[in-house]
């Protein structure tokens, strides 16, 4: 009890603070406790937030590191690429620049076209026993008009200068229409030609022009045939297999031959005549009915520059006004190439016509020409590689008793593929005393 008393004593001492104060203090303490609890809670929350922050930060750090690594990788790759580019650039400088591919053709720009081609010649000739002369100047333009894919109009003119007859002064300019024809490609195998046409009676007249004849003048027996005729023609080619072999053909009807004066006298035969229009513009069938003709050719190439072509052609029709007489001609032609240096070609020509004064007249003739380009000798001399040697033998019998044989030895000097200087000496044998040996030169240009 004493203890019990003793214990409350201090209390009793303390009891100097009264109950009220104690309760107030107690309240205070409780409140403080509560406050502290709250503070703890907040701290706890803050700590939690902080921990979360730290986690986020750690993640950031990681991302940053990853980014850094990526940047490094990219930098490395960039360096590699730059290196590669500079390698390619240096390589490109070392290799010669390749040409750009060509732009494809715009077909519209090549749909219609007008072109002028042709040739020009200047001739000098010296006939045995006469003065030498610049024989003529000749300008032969060819006008080509193409309409689209299938139509071509071609016209060839011949402007020439000719000395007037002995005892009359000066020279005369002549203009001839060599051909004026319309070509229409009907299909792959047939072409229709109409107008004033070069005739494939043999090959010579279709394959001539100053710059492509190897000897300045024509073979004598060509006088037996018309070079051109007014009419219509069907022509074309049929390939035989893939090797380049082919058969070509032409079939035509033309006005000539006719009679110059209407009679049936042999010396009035006019081979290409009867164009159908009189000078007073009246349509007239002058002295002879239209005639028909055809040619078939085989072209056999063995390889490029090695080929043989054989052809057979003929034409026939009434020539005099009375319709009494027929004129006919047949031609066998051949051409052979052995490499780009050797060429042999020729024609055999026969013709026959009835006449009032001489009955049946049978002219005939042939020519053979061989040429060799000296470049084939492989010599290292300056002029020689541009030279070609040409030989020609030609012969004609006019059917009325005149026979002429001629041998020509000639050359061609090629300034270029189209500018040629050619010359030849013609040895002539004839029972016509007016025909003589001749030296002849020609400068030809094809444009």
């Amino acid at each position: 009890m004493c203890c019990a008393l003793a214990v409350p004593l201090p209390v009793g001492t303390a009891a100097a603070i009264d109950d009220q104060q104690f309760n107030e203090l107690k309240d205070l303490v409780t409140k403080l406790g509560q406050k502290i609890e709250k503070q703890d809670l907040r701290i706890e929350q803050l700590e939690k937030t902080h921990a979360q922050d730290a986690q986020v930060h750690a993640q950031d750090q990681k991302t940053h590191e990853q980014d850094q690594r990526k940047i490094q990788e990219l930098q490395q790759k960039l360096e590699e690429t730059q290196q590669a580019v500079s390698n390619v650039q240096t390589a490109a400088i070392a290799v010669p620049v390749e040409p750009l591919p060509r732009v494809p053709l715009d077909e519209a720009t090549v749909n219609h076209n007008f072109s002028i081609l042709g040739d020009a010649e200047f001739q000098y000739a010296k006939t045995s026993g006469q003065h030498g002369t610049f024989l003529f100047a000749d300008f032969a333009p060819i006008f080509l008009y193409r309409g689209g894919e299938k139509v071509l109009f071609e016209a060839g003119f011949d402007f020439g200068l000719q000395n007037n007859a002995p005892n009359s002064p000066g020279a005369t300019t002549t203009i001839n229409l060599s051909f004026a024809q319309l070509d229409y490609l009907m299909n792959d195998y047939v072409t229709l030609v109409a107008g004033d046409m070069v005739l494939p009676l043999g090959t010579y007249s279709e394959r001539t022009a100053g710059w492509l004849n190897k000897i300045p003048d024509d073979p004598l027996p060509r006088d037996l045939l018309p070079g051109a005729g007014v009419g219509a023609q069907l022509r074309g080619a049929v390939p035989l297999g893939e090797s380049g072999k082919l058969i070509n053909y032409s079939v035509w009807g033309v006005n000539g031959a006719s009679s110059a004066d209407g009679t049936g006298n042999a010396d009035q035969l006019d081979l290409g005549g009867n164009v159908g229009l009189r000078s007073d513009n009246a349509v007239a069938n002058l002295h002879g009915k239209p005639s028909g003709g055809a040619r078939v050719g085989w072209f056999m190439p063995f390889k490029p520059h090695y080929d043989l072509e054989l052809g057979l052609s003929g034409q026939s029709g009434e020539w005099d006004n009375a319709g009494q007489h027929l004129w006919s001609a047949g031609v066998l032609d051949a051409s052979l190439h052995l490499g780009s240096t050797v060429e042999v070609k020729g024609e055999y020509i026969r013709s026959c016509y009835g006449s009032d004064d001489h009955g049946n007249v049978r002219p005939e003739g042939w020519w053979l020409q061989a040429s060799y380009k000296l470049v084939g000798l492989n010599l290292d001399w300056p002029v020689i590689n541009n030279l070609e040697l040409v030989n020609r033998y030609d012969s004609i019998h006019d059917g009325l008793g005149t026979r002429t044989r001629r041998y020509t030895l000639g050359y061609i000097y090629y300034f270029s593929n189209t500018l040629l200087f050619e010359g030849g000496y013609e040895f002539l044998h004839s029972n016509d005393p007016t025909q003589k040996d001749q030296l002849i030169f020609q400068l030809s240009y094809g444009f």
Partner: protein
Amino acid sequence: MNRPSSLKSRLWTGAGVAVLGALLYALSSVFVPGAGAKAEKKTEKRVEKKPEKKKLSGAELYSMHCNRCHPERYPTERTAAQWKTILLHMRVRANLPAEQSQMILKYLQDNSGR
């Protein structure tokens, strides 16, 4: 009076045509089979080495045809449009087959002076 002579010349022409025909036949039998046989032998030999002969190219056809009648004309001498016109001219003049002249034209245009 002159009729018989006309008949005669007609007969002559008939005979001429027959002769030409015979000549044509003779030529074809003399030249063509001979050449054909030779070509066959050659291709036989070649067949042993190379498999089959390919189709001719535009360039080959150009060198086969374009200096037969005259010195060759180079592709650069003309423009594409001019070549189209000139090739039509040459196709008619030289009786070139359609496909061949188109292939030559392509070769010339591709290498033309534009």
